[in-house]
């Protein structure tokens, strides 16, 4: 039991950090620009594909740098030539623009790499067990993933709270005219923010691509969970995103280990439930079975108890 608990905790932390990695760029863009980038998961997917492609051409380590940079450039282009022109039509139009973009990116990826998953396997340099815990090995690439995820948090935290440019960016969100009047290039700052957010998504894609499947449906597969994390954490809050990621990662992992259902609870309470009872299906769902929908349940509960999310400040 202790073994399973320890391994589960480790798995939960790994999954939580993966989620954080996925959401960090999204949180950055939202907190700075107030734009919910629906295409974020798609940029993540592009990162996975680009790293696969570059790794084949120039090797893994260069790809780890080039792919995120390329995603950053793509992000900058999206902001400069697309989003900026939609901005005047309001937030709904912005969300819809990124929503449409997600559609297009999926098809573009299909056009370039085909419909099947590509063989984006873990490169040999990081494909070894880092250590062993109760007989379960822990692969090195997951260790790298954890390190990058934590590095992302530190980078964002320092960049936003401790540097001049970060303070200027935050001011640009609330008082664009004022910041503009002070001689800062506000549109330029927005391009930069979008580029950095996209580069973070791309970086997440490089590593996440190993854990998930690099195929055109990747963005759809992870999109919803990413958005759930940011809502639970409080949209735009970096700390909230981290806490929510870890919370979901650990809760979900431990839920998998629980083989009991409501049925057991009812029976333990002396209530007779048979197959003929209404909602028998519902009672007999084991917690483990429902584990992957834990985040969604958490989302609804959070809204009832604390509608602005864990660390949410602004009412958006």
């Amino acid at each position, binding site marked *: 039991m202790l073994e399973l608990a320890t391994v589960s905790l480790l798995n939960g932390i790994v999954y939580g950090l993966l989620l954080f990695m996925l959401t960090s760029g999204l949180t950055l863009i*939202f907190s700075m620009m107030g734009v*919910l980038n629906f295409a974020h998961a798609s940029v993540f997917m592009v990162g996975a594909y680009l790293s696969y492609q570059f790794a084949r051409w120039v090797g893994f380590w260069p790809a780890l740098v080039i792919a995120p940079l390329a995603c950053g450039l793509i992000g900058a282009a999206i902001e400069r030539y*697309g989003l900026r*022109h*939609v901005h005047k*039509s309001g*937030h*709904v*139009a912005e*969300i*819809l*623009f990124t*929503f*449409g*973009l997600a*559609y*297009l990116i*999926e*098809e*573009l990826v*299909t*056009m*370039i*790499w*085909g*419909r099947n998953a590509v063989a984006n396997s873990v490169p040999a340099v990081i494909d070894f067990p880092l250590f062993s815990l109760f007989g379960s090995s822990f692969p090195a690439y997951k260790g790298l993933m954890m390190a990058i995820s934590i590095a992302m948090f530190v980078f964002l935290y320092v960049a936003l709270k401790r540097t001049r440019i970060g303070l200027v960016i935050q001011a640009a969100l609330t008082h664009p005219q004022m910041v503009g009047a002070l001689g800062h290039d506000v549109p330029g700052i927005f391009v930069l923010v979008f580029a950095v957010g996209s580069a973070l998504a791309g970086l997440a894609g490089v590593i996440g691509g190993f854990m998930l499947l690099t195929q055109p449906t990747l963005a759809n597969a992870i999109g*919803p969970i990413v*958005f*759930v994390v*940011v*809502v639970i954490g409080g*949209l735009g809050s970096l700390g909230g995103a981290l806490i929510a990621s870890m919370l979901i990662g650990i809760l979900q992992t431990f839920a998998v280990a629980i083989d009991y259902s409501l049925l057991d609870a009812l029976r333990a309470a002396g209530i007779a439930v048979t197959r003929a009872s209404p909602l*028998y*299906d*519902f009672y007999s*769902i084991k917690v483990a*079975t*429902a584990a*992957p*929908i834990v*985040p*969604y*349940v958490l*989302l*609804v509960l959070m*809204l*009832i108890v604390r*509608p602005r999310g864990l660390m949410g400040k602004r009412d*958006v």
Partner: protein
Amino acid sequence: MKSVAAAPEMTSAEPTPSWMTRSRTWVGAAAILLVLPHIPGLNADFGRSLLSQMGIAAVFALSFNLLLGQTGLLSFGHAVYFGLGGYATVHLMRAINHGLPVPVPLAPLAGAATGLLFGVLFGSVTTRRAGTIFALITLGIGELVYATTFMLPSYFGGEEGITASRTRGPALLGFDLGPQLQVYYVVALWAIIAAALMYAFTRTPVGRMCNAVRDNPERVEFVGYNTQRVRFVAFSAAGLFAGLAGGLHAINYEIVAADSVSALRSGTVLLMTYIGGVGRFIGPVIGAAVLTWLQASLSGYTSAWLFYLGLFFMAIIVFAPAGLAGLILMHRPIIRMPAFWRVLRAYAIAFAPALVMTIGAIVIIEMSYRLSTQPELGTRMRLFWTDIDAATPWPWLAAVVMIVSGFVVFRKTWPIVAQAWQQATTEASVAAGAR
């Protein structure tokens, strides 16, 4: 000082037409619905089935627009109410098949009731927030419901869904719903009733307050209304009509499966509504018809149809945020002006280079798709009645030349269009002044 010239999409405060005009519009719509399935091309099973599907989609999209266009709420999970309404209806139909004495054409009422029930239930949670968070919550609830349909197979029937027969039940006025034509008329009747009710809803006090909440929720609080409550009422109403659409879906297909609550369907209704135009009541209907048709037919021509659809959607967002309805209706003030013909002529002039540009783009997209997804079919293909070989640089070069030259000429035509428009609007304002 703000500009006095209104952008066309700004005037979404559609003036209420007179009683005569209104009743003429509705009678006209009903007449069109009556003859549509007899028009050559639509008078076979497939055509009628497509029309039925359009009608269902139109009700669904109109209900979505109660949220998006009327109340300013962007939902990514509207299919939940559609699907749950569909399940309720198909279960009622099963009961009818087993002897419950209710005519099948009334079964969608069960869908409407279920849609309302869940609209009230989930609405009480989701409408606590607005804007971006609201959008994300609806997304989450959609995922939750979708996952649940697989977990509770006794009600949702798992992956194969729930089937029922629409013909086994008491016939209403001699209709047994066997032929698609009868199904179409049931759909059309419900669709026009639902559209009229939704139109009426936008003209009630709470409907007006929905518009006010969309425009400025903060101010609404200072004229006595609780914005959450207004959103909640709109959400419940939207749930009701979505459920009705789901009920019609159940009658039309005699099967309801998990895909009916899926995120894909929620996304589709969003595309339909937005492409049609959120600012006009008729917008979602246009969007539903166009997208249903594209989905059913475009996919028969090219496997890249999703890509074209995405491009179309993006083009609407960037260039025509008022949607197709907005594009069409912005011509209304000038249609009787002498200069309208100049506008049409300018359109024709602009159309030619735009077409060249579009063909160039299509050639490139089709060749890329062929090379990446169907390499075995070889590089030779037939596009626009021309044999080309994607392995040679010529078609690519030609396509690029078409795009670039088309674009250059196209840009040159913009002033012509603008000038014609200018003249027409001047005439229109002079005419308005004379009146």
